[in-house]
């Protein structure tokens, strides 16, 4: 069974800034594992920009998995669509080769936040799959944990790039706090669905003291 992961991140930058930063998010201090980056296809169709980029990354794997995965590098295809009218950026990323051993597919939708005007919300979904007989469960579990850990690093790296591009951007509070809060908020929302709505309101308020 493939493992599924999803989370929601709020960036303290408007959508135009995030979309511009997206193309420049490498290199950053958290991206030392990203070795190369190339644009291999790009076209404008009905006002939207479609791009394919090829990335190569180092492939860190545990000792026990070395018998399945011998490649030290992994190539990744990142497809993206930018719709400037509706202010939506969608990315879809998959690894090339070794897909039977471990495939990691990630989809992220960046759009204007409805809750926090002027900020951007990123909705991330990821699928981790393996078809190695007898080991798929272990490989998926490893891939899932590695992916989850890397998410925080990816967001930190992206925020670093954004803060360099927009140094005068007025931050309400530290971006890291927002990330944590967004994750907590999601957990809180899950719990909140089970309790009365009137009780849930203070949970939101306490997580976002600066915004209430």
């Amino acid at each position, binding site marked *: 069974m493939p493992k*599924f992961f*999803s989370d929601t991140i709020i960036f303290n930058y408007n959508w*135009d800034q995030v*979309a*511009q930063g997206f*193309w*420049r998010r*490498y*290199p950053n201090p958290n991206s030392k594992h*990203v*070795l*190369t*980056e*190339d*644009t*291999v*296809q*790009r*076209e*404008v169709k009905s*006002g939207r*920009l479609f791009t*394919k980029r*090829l990335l*190569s990354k180092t492939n860190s794997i545990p000792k026990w998995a070395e018998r399945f995965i011998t490649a030290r590098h992994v*190539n990744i*295809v990142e*497809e*993206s*669509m*930018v719709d*400037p009218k509706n202010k939506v950026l*969608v*990315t*879809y990323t*998959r690894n*090339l*080769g070794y897909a039977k051993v471990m495939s990691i*597919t990630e*989809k992220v939708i960046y759009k204007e936040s409805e809750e926090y005007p002027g900020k951007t919300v990123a909705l991330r*979904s990821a*699928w981790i799959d393996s078809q190695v007989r007898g080991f798929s469960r272990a490989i998926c579990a490893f891939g899932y944990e590695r992916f989850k850990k890397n998410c925080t690093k990816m967001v930190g790296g992206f925020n670093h790039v954004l803060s360099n591009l927009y140094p005068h951007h007025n931050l309400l509070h530290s971006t890291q706090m927002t990330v944590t809060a967004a994750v907590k908020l999601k957990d809180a929302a899950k719990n909140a669905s089970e309790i009365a709505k009137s009780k849930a309101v203070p949970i939101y308020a306490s997580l976002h003291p600066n915004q209430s």
Partner: protein
Amino acid sequence: MNMNSIGEACNDLKKEYDACFNLWFSEHFLKGNTNDSMCAPLFRVYQQCVKKAMKDQKLDVEEVSKDVLGTDKEKKEPQSS
């Protein structure tokens, strides 16, 4: 700071193209001008270089150029939340 290309010989072409693209994206595309001819000549030479590098490194070009985003090949979210 710039990222390297998969082909060492393409690094300068990539750098030039990326600079052009970033300017076009900010100053034209996001402002509603979808004409992408501005960086087309730079893109063309950079592409020739990358395609050759991909071939040299025996990359599956067909697999790279496969469309998944926006097609029914996209993975779906599990039904239960």
